[in-house]
């Protein structure tokens, strides 16, 4: 007889509302279930009532932390439909914003992970060092979190060339602080003891659950949309995919910390590239979007963000589908948490950097009568194919 320990929905540990049920025997977690819907806002439906320019502001608010990745993926998607090629300057600016976001998101995660471990010093430090990145955002876009930089065919604001030295100065500061933080986290015996060998995901598990992003890269699978299907300025610059082999929480932390250095290097190369492009060429004018179906993806700090859109030549998307990385990553809890103690389960839950407001667009499939039966794989595929058929007929 296992005891159920609920975490959430409004738990002090997590700033977002979601409910985890840990089925425990003694102190060992035997099963984990999660319930969602507290954060559902109906974004895909709302998107159908907005014009293409407005959708960018909406998808930015899918998730506040990855508020560049969603517009990025949507822009890639619409530009695929319209066969639009954005100017190089816009490509560089898009990449800079996306990488800055990765730095701030990873710092945020390191802080929260420290908080989950009960190591609040790490939390305070990481969030203190995150502030200069947010200042940089404020300097570039005027807002700390939702940047509103994206539009079809380019970006809304330019980064003037005379701002570049200042940005580089702040980046140097960020790099120095990251050195400090990385050193402190990697050498700390307490963090080693709490995270090494905890929540291990093997290569096979990652393939089974189709996990993406740093979660997959920490288990030795070098999956990264920026490398696999390059977009924006990523093919123009030099960088490498960071991987680790162990698959435990420590490896995930290591991958994220080292990725921040890659991001800094990418931004520096983009700033150099920006100097060569003529100022002001940040967009091309797009008059209308033709009828068609498009897909676009972008590498968010948590993994691949995927957007699907269908247009009919009007000013609105007919259908807009979003799949966020946490949707697949959260399923790995079934593997990583089971067999752990309750105290280790929390950090295993946090290790994939789950983002519930990204994920809240699934329809759960329950049998109405029994309340238990979930549709099997084949049935789901059949429903999905039917839906595609319906869309194609629209």
């Amino acid at each position: 007889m296992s005891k159920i320990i609920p975490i959430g929905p409004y738990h002090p540990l997590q700033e977002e509302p979601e409910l985890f049920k840990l089925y425990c025997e003694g102190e060992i977690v035997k099963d984990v279930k999660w319930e969602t819907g507290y954060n559902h806002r109906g974004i895909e439906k709302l998107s159908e009532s907005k014009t293409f320019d407005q959708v960018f502001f909406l998808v930015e608010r899918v998730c506040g932390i990855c508020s560049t990745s969603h517009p990025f993926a949507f822009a890639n998607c619409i530009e695929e439909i319209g066969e639009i090629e954005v100017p190089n300057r816009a490509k560089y600016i898009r990449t800079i914003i996306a990488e800055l976001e990765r730095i701030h998101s990873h710092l945020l995660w390191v802080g929260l992970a420290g908080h989950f471990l009960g190591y609040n010093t790490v939390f305070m430090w990481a969030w203190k060092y995150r502030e200069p990145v947010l200042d940089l955002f404020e300097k570039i876009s005027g807002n700390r979190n939702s940047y509103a930089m994206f539009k079809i065919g380019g970006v809304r604001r330019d980064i003037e060339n005379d701002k570049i030295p200042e940005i580089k100065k702040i980046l140097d500061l960020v790099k120095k602080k990251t050195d400090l933080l990385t050193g402190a986290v990697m050498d700390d015996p307490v963090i080693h003891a709490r995270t090494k060998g905890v929540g291990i995901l093997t290569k096979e598990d990652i393939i089974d659950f189709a996990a993406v992003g740093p979660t997959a890269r920490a288990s030795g699978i070098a999956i990264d949309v920026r490398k696999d299907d390059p977009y924006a300025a990523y093919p123009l610059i030099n960088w490498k995919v960071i991987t680790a082999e162990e698959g435990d929480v420590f490896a995930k932390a290591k991958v994220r910390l080292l990725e921040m250095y890659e991001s800094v290097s990418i931004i520096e190369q983009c700033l150099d590239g920006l100097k060569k492009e003529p100022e002001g060429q940040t967009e091309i004018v797009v008059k209308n979007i033709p009828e068609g179906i498009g897909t676009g993806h972008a590498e968010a700090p948590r993994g691949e963000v995927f957007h699907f859109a269908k247009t009919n030549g009007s000013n609105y998307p007919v259908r807009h589908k979003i799949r966020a990385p946490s949707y697949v990553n959260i399923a790995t809890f079934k593997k990583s948490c089971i067999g752990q103690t309750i105290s280790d389960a929390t950090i295993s839950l946090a290790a994939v950097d789950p983002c519930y407001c990204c994920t809240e667009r699934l329809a759960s499939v329950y049998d109405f009568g029994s309340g238990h039966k979930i549709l099997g794989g084949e049935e789901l595929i059949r429903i999905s194919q039917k839906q595609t058929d319906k869309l194609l007929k629209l």
Partner: protein
Amino acid sequence: MGFKEFCFKKSLWLFHFGGASCNNCDIEILDCLTPRYDVERFGMLLVGSIRHADVLLVNGSINQKDKKRLLEIYHQAPKPILVVAIGACGCTGGIFAEGNTFAGPVDKIIPVDAYIPGCPPKPEAILAGIVKLLNKKPEQHKSA
């Protein structure tokens, strides 16, 4: 000094209710606790249970599933309690107000004492809002 004035005179403890939000306001509230803004110097502390709290911070649009939980949390709160709606979504519903799951802005569900608009409001704005609320005369407090 009346009872209400006495209640809000010293360290305020905050409880954070994140509705159907995009996470930005949640992050900015947490940001207030970190070294640059550091609300703890005013004695403000984020607590884990509404039963320990003096102030209820609500952010995000409220959907059907959140609505009854918000009401329940409000009823569990020890009175007097101050309610602060944070962010455009908390104040009006913001961009999600037309959504099919939207159950009304916070003030349609529970009485609200202060509104801090912005998408998301900066930590400075959150601090300023709470300080303004504290300077309000206690008879002007709605929920309590």
